[in-house]
């Protein structure tokens, strides 16, 4: 499942929705990314997250399908927020559901790596009197 949304999410609830569908799931690896107070040595006030929504859904679906194939995942959930996000707020969640733990770890890492590289989202960080667009490094 791919969700691109403005609103906050609850990790327990989101994982439960998927987990409840499969008694064969023994392992769930989850990554959650947050807005940090300091980035590149600058005090961050908040950030604006822009998305090319229709393309992000397409691109994340492709990345997800590749991960499911490659790591024999039972299912997979990606939530990415956009809009104004303040310090300590969640930005992204990726959860990979598998029988055994290694697949869930590898699947989640794979998705995060490609999401950072290819998913059309852009962060603009705001400081005291300035702002700047970020660029992911590999």
């Amino acid at each position: 499942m791919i969700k691109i949304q403005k609103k906050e999410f609850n990790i327990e609830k989101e994982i439960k929705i998927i987990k409840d569908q499969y008694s064969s799931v023994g392992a769930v690896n989850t990554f959650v990314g947050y807005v940090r107070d300091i980035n590149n040595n600058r005090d961050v006030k908040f950030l604006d997250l822009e998305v090319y929504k229709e393309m992000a859904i397409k691109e994340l679906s492709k990345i997800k399908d590749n991960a499911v194939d490659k790591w024999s995942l039972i299912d997979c959930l990606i939530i990415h927020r956009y809009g104004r996000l303040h310090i300590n707020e969640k930005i992204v969640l990726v959860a990979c559901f598998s029988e055994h733990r290694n697949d869930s770890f590898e699947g989640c890492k794979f998705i995060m790596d490609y999401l950072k590289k290819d998913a059309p989202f852009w962060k603009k960080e705001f400081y005291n009197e300035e702002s700047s667009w970020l660029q992911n490094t590999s």
Partner: protein
Amino acid sequence: MKIKYFAWIKDITKKDYEFIEKDFPRNINELKKNLNTMYPDLEKHIMSDILRFAINKEYVSENSEIKSTDEIAIFPPVSGG
């Protein structure tokens, strides 16, 4: 033909999107030339090859053909996650 701009590209174009109604570029390279003319401040970025292009929400890496009904997106390196 709809052209969409994202992130700091919008700071240069001063708009999110626009329509090209005539003299359609036939491929991405022709579109790049048009953009250089329309937005001189964009030229150095287009020349430096850091921008990414998508046709109908699919990345294109080569000089692909484009049709008058396509939606073309132009954007800088991503920073999601």
